[in-house]
């Protein structure tokens, strides 16, 4: 029973993380680090909650969150491609701006009640003992987050559009000479990623961390940046990382009664792990691949997009 409850909590607690991690993965696959994740998630958490509160429809809140996220991403994309500014600089400034902006604009929404996302048990299959309760008795946004994992994998690996986005993130010049509109692809990947980040923000304030308060989603944006790397830019592994972090959170809450220090430090664990993964990725990329057992590579390796974080070369059309 305890075990069962823990899984249920982890799955619903990880909902926004999954969505955000996949959004950031798509963005980074197109070659753009959306460093504004921390700010984007926070301000879309506010806009999601505020619009949900005003209209009393949670769905409007989710759409508002997505719109907020995509506007910010479009802005980054414009600065990156049209103005040829440093995407990291723009993302960083936007993070700080959005955090303070959400704290200022959100003052009227602190600790009030808005629309609530209710659980939706899928008919028939939710009646299956244990499994039904664990996997098929969640809110719609949680089902969406679970479905998003295979969908985004399929999108990035099997569709033309997804492959073009990846090509633009790996080698813009080669992609461009193959007739791919690199600028468009990069913009598209960034905006889709931003919209998902926004949706994640809204699912914090409308579902897993219901409501709004000052710096409501603090540090989640930085954590998802770490989880994307943990996931080696692969949606399935990234999702596993997000669930892993959800489990850490649950453990941290449980540990609170035992030792205060542990409960404060456990949620920081993804960061050192991120650094080790990055070192390992670079290490196996340099040495001969077959030196390592295959399962180790598939767990710890990863395909960092070659052009990640770089400006497009001048001669890309």
């Amino acid at each position: 029973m305890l075990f069962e409850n823990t899984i249920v909590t982890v799955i619903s607690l990880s909902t926004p993380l999954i969505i955000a991690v996949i959004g950031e993965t798509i963005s980074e696959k197109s070659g753009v680090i959306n460093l504004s994740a921390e700010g984007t998630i926070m301000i879309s958490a506010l806009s999601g909650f505020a619009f949900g509160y005003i209209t009393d429809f949670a769905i409007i809140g989710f759409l508002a969150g997505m719109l907020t996220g995509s506007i910010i991403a479009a802005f980054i994309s414009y600065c990156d491609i049209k103005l040829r500014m440093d995407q990291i600089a723009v993302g960083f400034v936007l993070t700080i701006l959005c955090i303070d902006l959400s704290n200022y604009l959100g003052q009227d929404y602190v600790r009030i009640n808005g629309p609530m996302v209710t659980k939706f048990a899928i008919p028939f299959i939710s009646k299956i003992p244990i499994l039904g309760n664990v996997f098929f008795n969640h809110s719609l946004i949680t089902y969406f987050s679970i479905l998003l994992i295979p969908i985004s994998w399929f999108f990035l690996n099997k569709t033309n559009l997804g492959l073009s986005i990846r090509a633009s993130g790996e080698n813009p010049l080669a992609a461009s000479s193959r007739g791919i509109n690199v600028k468009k692809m990069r913009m598209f990947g960034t905006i889709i990623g931003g919209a998902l980040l926004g949706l994640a923000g809204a699912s914090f304030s409308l579902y897993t961390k219901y409501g709004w308060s000052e710096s409501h989603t603090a540090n989640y944006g930085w954590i998802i940046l770490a989880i994307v790397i943990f996931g080696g830019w692969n949606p399935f592994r990234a999702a596993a990382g997000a669930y892993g972090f959800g489990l850490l959170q649950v453990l941290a809450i449980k540990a609170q009664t035992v030792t205060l220090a542990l409960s404060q430090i456990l949620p920081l664990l993804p960061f050192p792990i991120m650094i080790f993964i990055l070192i390992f990725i670079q290490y196996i990329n340099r040495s001969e691949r077959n030196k390592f057992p295959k399962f180790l590579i598939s767990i710890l390796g990863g395909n960092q997009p070659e052009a990640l974080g770089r400006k497009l070369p001048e001669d890309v059309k």
Partner: protein
Amino acid sequence: MNKNIQLIQINFIRLVLTLAIIFFVLTLFGTSPISIFDSIIYGSMGSYSKFIRTLIVWAPISLASVALIYTFSAGMWNIGIEGQIIMGAVGATFVARSFFGDTIISPYVQILFALGFGGFWGLICGVLKVKGNVHEIFSGLGLDFVASGIVIYLIIGPWKREGIASTSGTDVFDKASWIPTIGQNEFPLLLILIIFVIYIFSFFIFKYTSFGLRLKATGVNEDAAERFYFSSGKYILLSFFIAGAIAGLAGFSQASGAYHKLVPSISGGFGFLSILIVLICSRNIFFTLIISFLFSALIVGGSQLQIKLGLDHSLIGIIQALFVLSWLILEKLKLEKILLSKIIRSNE
């Protein structure tokens, strides 16, 4: 000379445009920009004691900003600056809690430890970059959180206050460990001296030494640097070490000058703020000194906004970030050049 005058003119027009954007946004929020800036100026420089408070905030921000010039010159994004400030504060606290704590030399030993702890934390980032090819943004971000994890552990664990373990901070340091001040209003002479020494030192490094030149060459093009027979890796490592050490001093200032103890959020977000500052100063040391002072005045003056005008202090962060964002975009749009040539033409 003519070019310099034009540069000043362009920067001046850009400043006016940036302020216009900020005024516009503040008006959009339904606030009065004039009364906001009035209360900020009064709140940060209205009296001698307020001015001292501004100096105490200015010290860590100006130090962290000049630290970032080193890494930016080498073409590195030192997002790990927050962690370096935190570790500097840890170093200072370590000395303040040791047997040095109640002796008169404590602050000076703290300086050494802050330099060492901060430099070491910066160096990790550099080693990961040079030896491991890890993107400095990700390692920096990770090390920021690891550092704050260490602080939380120390505050709850080994350095906890007598009897209670809470996240409110360690015991207050012995008075001998506080940064020495002068006069009744506690003018922080030592801090101001440190700032000027570091700034003059950095000015000379970048202006007159081959080290400064090579650092900049590394930032422009790593491969070109190799072709001139010096290893860019060495310079990246050095830039991270120096930046970390100076940032460590900022942590020392926070722990022994501002709080007089170690608290979980010891860096106060000043590291990230310094990144904003350096972004608009384009590695100009003189500008950095001035802009960091203006931003500190904004912070100290902004703490009065709630009392005087009933406005949330987050407005200050909005003003700062908006300033930087507008500045960066205007810089790229090159509007000022067009404006300037129009003004000149109409004068002719």
